[in-house]
Each structure stands twice: as C-alpha cells, then as structure tokens.
C-alpha cells in the first residue's frame, strides 16, 4: 500500500502508582499507512488507549513512555512540547470516549472550534469562523450558525461527539486516532457516528486508528487489526484474514466470545409467576419552596407483562427507555400504579414489612459489579446478608457453610470468601452478586444489565452461568439489556421499550429477525450490521 505515516517501535508505557510501577504497555510495534483504517482491539486494561495517548504526549503526569513514535520521520517522543503542538491537532488528532466531558464546558462550541483552526492555519477570525461552520455542516449538525453560540451542556451526547469530530478534522489531518468514540453512546447513535466517520475518512483520505473492544465495529470499518492483551500485541493482520483464520488462542477466544445458542420457549401453560398489568411509574422532579410546581416525568407508561416459570423475558431499549425502572417497579422497589401479582397474589400495596418475606423469592442482580458490593464487607458476608434477614436463626458456622456452597454454585473458589470485593475481578464480582441472589433460592430474578460492564469473554461465561442456574433451579428471569446479542442468546421472549412505552414484543425470532417497528429495526441495524 502507500507510505507509512505513523510507526510505533518498541513503545513502552509505565505508570508510577502508590503500589509501585505498573507496566501498561510492554514494547509494542505498530504502523499506520496513509489513508488506511487500523483497528486496535483489546479488553479494558490491555493498554490500547494508553499506547496511543503516549504517542500523542497525552499521558497522565505519573505516566512515562519510551521507544520511538515516528511520524513522517519525526520521533514524537523526542521533540519539544511546542514542536509537538504544531503536529497535534494539525497533522494527527485524537477523539475520545467521553463525549459529555471532552469539550470545555465554559466556552461556546464556536470558540472551541475556532481556536485550533486559527492556531494551525493562521487564519483570521472571520475565515476561521467560516471554516468552523463548514465543519459543523460536514458533521451534519443542524443549524450550524446558531450552534456556534451554544455551550456543550446544551447539546446531546451524539451532537457533542460530532462537534469533537469536527474539531479534530478541521485542519485536514493525516491521521485521526479515535479512542472508543462510540462506546458511551446509545446504539442507534453509535451507528450514525460510525457511518459519519467512515464516510469522512473516505472523503478526506486520512489514516485512522480505531481503538475499540467491539469486534463488530472492527469488522465493519478496519483494513487491518492489531489484537492487544496485557500491554502486548498478540496478533496482527488484515481484517478479513484475521477474522477467518485467527492464529493466537486469545484472538480465537475473542472471536468466539459472542454468546451463542438460543433458549427454548417454556410450555404455554407453565405456572404464571408474575403478572404486571398497566404499570405506570411517575417521577416528580424539583418542586418545593419558590421553585414552582414539580415537573412530572412518566418513566414507565402502561407496560404489561406475564412472566412464567422457567421463562426468560428480555427487555431491550436504549438508556432512558424505562426498562430498569419497569423491572424495579415490578419488584416493588419503586412506587408504581397498576396491578402486580406474584403467584396470583397481588403484591401492589403491600407494606415494606409485608414485602419482606417475599423478597427472598424475588431477587435482583445489578449492572455495576463494582458498585453493587459493599466495599467493607467480605464476599462471604455479602453473599449471606440475605440469610440474616430471612433465616435469622441459623448459626454463624452454618452461614459460612452456605456461603461456601453458594460461591461454589457460581463457580468461585469458596476459599476466597473472606476476601473483600476490591480483591476480585469484575467477572468474579458479578458472580458474587449472583451468589447473593441465588443463596435465597428465589423464584424470580431480575437481571439488570448483568453483563454490560464486563468484557466480552467474561460476558459469555456469565451468560453460561446464568443459563445453568436457571436450568438447575427452574428460575424465571427478567433480563434487561441494551445488548441485543446477549438478549438473543438468553431470552425466549423479548420486549422492546422506548420512552417508557412497550413498542414491540414477541419471540426472539419475531422481534430480532422480523422487526415490525422502525425503532426496533434501527436497534437491530446498529447491533448486527455486517
């Protein structure tokens, strides 16, 4: 192909921390040709972001980089700050994962766009403004003239990411480094941004480095791929070849990490566990002395559902669609209106005390494996907390035994039960959270995005574990996720929610293969586009 524009040779990055030096990148070689899209794939902590940050001179103050980062004959690690500043933003630019915080909240979009244009192209104020407006138009921001005067907090996440792209591309760079630019966005917006980036890359002919953990994206846009793990490149190659014939076991594992299999539907006459009819949840925002009447927000609007024994209902939708709120309302963790029955007994209107004995039957596993475990309790204490409530009579030794047993059921070494949450990995922590729920032998478990915070490979293991537990204990699941691939593998019935309403439901085949609603189609396209 054409000439090499960026060449990393033996790049190492280390961080000085309180607990000693941590090597994040251990000698990586990598290159990008002009006009080419290179993907760097790896799990969180693989060093993929830090490596490119190092190349751009953007490491945190405790970070140190060594090796060569060659840009058209200049070693970026060896030149002075002001020399580097003539290259950054003009020749090489970078956009980031966090669209909400990557723009300066104190200046208007216009100010922030104009400043780098003036600096690098030495244009006057008016020319720079014209160029900025042109860029906003290019990234398809509506009413660019008016938007120039907006502050970042007045825009949505997707729009801000567009502005970031406009800022990065305003000086016609050779190379754009994109660090997970779509990860923090909703799936439908993700697709739009990706499409925008791909079309701009073709139109402007620049090279692109795309850092991601999402193999779907790689397949869609990259020419070549580097697979990183624990600070090293374990495999590299043309995208097609790599996907067809992965050589390194890690790459194979990554490619196979997509959860597979389908769940068989339950018998139509299986026991009804939960019936929810016309559930409504309303939040009141603000209100109070001197600030006027409260704002009413209908978070869930007339959603009905029947969950049978052994069934898994998947609820999908974007953030803010009300899917979590609905599930919590069903468990009576939030006040709601509408009828809710559990095993044909109405639970709507029961007091906290009356609900307490039912809590062991109705369990929940939360999304964030770091936030959902009390940091100052041991794994054993966390797992057995429910027993303190529901079987207060059992002895400490018996509780300890039960904790060990529960940890074994979720395939964790029971000898780890005196460890604290921070000593476990994300996947292990999610197992502890699952153990905490199943130790009570519940009948219904709400799984609120239980795999979203985990790496792909770990996700797959947790999905397998959840399935196994369901079979052994004949559990009913309410599975909430925005990840359609996981839902497809887990659920035998899918509900699609948008803006608090149920827009579509049916079997996975009906909903995912033949979506009726526009919204579902868009979700599908974004998630499975080949």
């Amino acid at each position: 192909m054409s000439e090499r524009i960026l060449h990393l040779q033996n790049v190492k990055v280390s961080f000085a921390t309180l607990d000693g030096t941590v090597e994040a990148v251990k000698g990586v070689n990598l290159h990008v040709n002009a006009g080419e899209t290179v993907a760097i794939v790896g799990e969180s902590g693989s060093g993929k972001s830090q490596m490119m940050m190092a190349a751009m001179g953007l490491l945190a103050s405790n970070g140190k980089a060594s090796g060569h980062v060659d840009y058209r004959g200049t070693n970026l690690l060896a030149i002075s700050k002001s020399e580097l500043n003539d290259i950054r933003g003009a020749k090489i630019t970078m956009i980031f994962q966090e669209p909400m915080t990557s723009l300066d909240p104190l200046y208007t979009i216009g100010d922030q766009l104009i400043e780098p244009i003036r600096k690098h192209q030495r244009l006057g104020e008016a020319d720079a403004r014209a160029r900025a407006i042109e860029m906003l138009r290019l990234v398809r921001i509506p009413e660019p003239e008016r938007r120039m005067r907006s502050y970042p907090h007045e825009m949505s996440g997707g729009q801000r990411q567009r502005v970031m792209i406009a800022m990065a591309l305003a000086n016609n760079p050779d190379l754009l480094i994109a660090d997970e630019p779509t990860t923090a966005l909703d799936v439908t917006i993700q697709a739009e941004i990706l499409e925008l980036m791909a079309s701009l890359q073709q139109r402007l002919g620049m090279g692109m480095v795309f850092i991601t953990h999402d193999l779907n994206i790689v397949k869609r846009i990259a020419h070549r791929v580097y697979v990183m793990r624990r600070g090293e490149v374990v495999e590299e190659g043309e995208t097609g070849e790599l996907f067809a014939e992965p050589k390194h076991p890690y790459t194979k594992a990554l490619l196979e990490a997509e959860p597979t299999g389908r769940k068989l539907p339950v018998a139509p006459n299986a026991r009804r566990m939960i019936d929810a009819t016309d559930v409504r949840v309303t939040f009141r925002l603000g209100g109070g002395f001197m600030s006027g009447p409260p704002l009413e927000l209908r978070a869930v609007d007339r959603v009905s559902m029947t969950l049978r024994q052994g069934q898994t209902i998947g609820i999908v939708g974007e953030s803010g669609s009300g899917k979590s709120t609905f599930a919590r309302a069903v468990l009576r963790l939030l006040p709601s209106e509408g009828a809710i029955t559990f095993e044909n007994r109405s639970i709507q209107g029961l007091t906290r005390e009356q609900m307490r004995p039912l809590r062991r039957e109705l369990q929940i596993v939360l999304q964030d494996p770091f936030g959902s475990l009390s940091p100052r309790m041991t794994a054993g204490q966390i797992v057995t907390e429910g027993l303190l409530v529901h079987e207060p009579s059992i002895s400490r030794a018996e509780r300890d035994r039960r904790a060990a047993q529960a940890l074994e059921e979720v395939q964790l070494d029971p000898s780890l039960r005196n460890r604290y949450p921070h000593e476990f990995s994300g996947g292990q922590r999610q197992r502890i959270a699952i153990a905490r729920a199943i130790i009570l032998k519940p009948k219904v478990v709400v799984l609120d995005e239980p795999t979203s915070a985990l790496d792909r490979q770990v996700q797959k293991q947790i999905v397998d574990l959840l399935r196994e537990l369901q079979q052994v204990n004949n559990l009913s699941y309410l599975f909430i996720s925005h990840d359609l691939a996981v839902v497809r593998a887990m659920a035998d019935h899918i509900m699609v929610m948008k803006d608090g309403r149920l827009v579509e439901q049916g079997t996975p085949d009906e909903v995912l293969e033949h979506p009726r609603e526009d919204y579902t189609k868009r979700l599908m396209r974004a998630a499975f586009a080949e």
Partner: protein
Amino acid sequence: MTDVTLPSAAKGRSLWADAWNRLKANKAAMVSLWYLLFMGIVCIVGPWFTPHDFTTIYQDYTRVPPSLSAYPKADAIDLAVKDAVQRSRLELAGWEEKDGKVYITVTSAKPIDPRVTRYIDRSDVFEGAQVVETSDDKLKMTMSADFKHEYFFFGTDNNGRDLLTRTLIAGRVSLAIGLLAGLVAVVIGVLYGAVAGFSGGKTDEVMMRIVDILYSLPFIFFVIMLVVFFGRNFVLMFLAVGAVLWLDMARIVRGQALSLKRQEYVQAAEALGVSPGGILLRHVVPNLLGPVVIYMTLLVPQVIILESFLSFLGLGVQEPMSSWGVLISQGAKNIPSATWLLIFPSFFLTTTLFALNFIGDGLRDALDPKDR
C-alpha cells in the same frame, strides 16, 4: 452437594488494612503520630516529674531566663542576700561564698535573735540556715546557709512560676479540650447530618437551612455568646467550642449519606429485604467511618486553635489553670524582655498542630487514595 467440607478460607485484605499499610508508608504521618503520642505522654505524666508545681510562685525568680544549669546564678545571690537581710531588718555587714555555702554576716543596734535564720530560709535561694558565730555582745552574727538549687529549664513567668511545668499543664488542657470538643462536634455533626441526609425531602431542606443560617452568623459572635451564656467555665468550654464546629461535619456527613443512599449496594440490600436498621449498621456506618475519621483529625487542631484563640482573648481557660493560648497571650505581652515566654508555648502548640495536620493529611491519603 449439601455436604460441602469447608476449605480453609484465605484471609482477605480489608480496606482498613490497606489504609493502615498506606498510612504506615507515609513517613510524615508516622513521625507525627509518634510525636503526638510523645507529646501526650509528656503532658500527662511530665508535670509529676518536673521539680516544681505549676502554681508555686518563686518570688526570687520572677522572669528568669531558661537555663540548663541550676539557679541561683552568681549575680542573683547578692540580690537574694540583700533581700533576705532587709526582711530581717538587720544590717548587712558582708557575705561570702565558700565550699558551696554562703556565709552572711549581719550587724544590728540591738542584740540579734538567733531565730533570724528563718528569714534566710524563707528566701527561695537558701535553705538550712544556721548560726555559725555570734559576737559576745550579740550585735554581730555570722550565719551559713546552703543554696537551694532550682532548675528552670524553660525559665519562669512574671509571677515566678516554672514555665516548663506550666507549659506541660497547659498542654494537658489544650489537648483534652481538642479531643473532647472535637468529639462533641463530631457526635453532633454526624447525628445531625445523618438524620438530614437519610430523611431527605422536606426534613433535609429545613435542617440544612438551619445550618446555613448558623453559618452566616458571625462565627466569633456565636462563640462569644456561648461563652457569655456558659460563663468562663472550663468544662462548658468543650461544649461551646464543640457546638460551634459541628456545622462542617454535619454538611460532610449529609453529603455522604445522600450519596450512600444512591449506592447500588444499598439498593441491593433493600432488594434483599434488609431493614433500614440493618442497612445503617452494615452498609452506611462502615462507609461513613472513613470521612468522619479524617475530618475528626483535622477538627482537633481547629478546636485547639479556637480554644487558644479564646484563651488569648481572655475568654477561655482562667488562671491559675493554663492552656497554650493563655501562655502565648502572656508571652506576646512580654516581648522583648522575656522572649522565652512566647517561644516555648508557641513551639509546643505549633508542633502539635503540625503533627495533627500531617496525620489528618496522611489519613486522607490512606483512606481515600484518589484524592492526590
């Protein structure tokens, strides 16, 4: 399946243990910890071992500078002899120092009573005075006396009291007030803040409004009013000072309580059916402890400063009791003639404050390592 033999469980590293290890690695904090311990012991035990009582007045040694060697010094002897003789209403014929004793010769128009030796003994400088020689007409007498050796390592104050003992006694008072008033402030603040944070809604709004108003009252006014109400009472000082400084604590705890309430592990506990009491006990209190401990160590020096400040103004601890603030106030009035009166108590106060600050900073770094 049910018959699991329990494997021996490895011990976990709790966050507390982590924090303790980090604190141990912090040299400034550890040195400060030892220094503070040393200071505490010296102030508590020290006054029993110093050669003087903190109320004893040595009239012959007012404002003597600090010295490692014993008093009296040569130039003080002459003065002390003259003083003593003058008090006995006799004429001084002369004195000499020989073999570590002083020999004083006195004359009088009337026969001299041998009991005049008691005038010599009454001086702070001499002891064991006895008659050596009396002339036949009893109009002239020579007495001998031993020197009473006194050590004033820190010198003495305007009244002739030993500054070392007084500084240590003052340290007892300042440290005790610091700890107790700090505790009062923490207890009030934690209770108030926790109630506000967990009740939320209107209760929270009203309670925090009250805190806001108390904040906007001039701070000194508030303290002075409390002192005026309670009188200049040593014990009530704790309450007054503590009652003023709880506001920050209340705000911190409320903020923590609000954020804890939203933590996923609290939600998870609610989903398990754990009662509010259980949530408070197992989830909230242990997680609140960190910020409270940090704030408490930073509060103690504030209390000590506030107490010293009030004492400096004459509103705090009253004579003959003493605190570092009282001593510094006296010291400030006596420069330049008696700089030691300022220097020693200032040194004690300042180093203690430094130590407390380093410990507080160390604890914050140890318990909340993100902060740096």
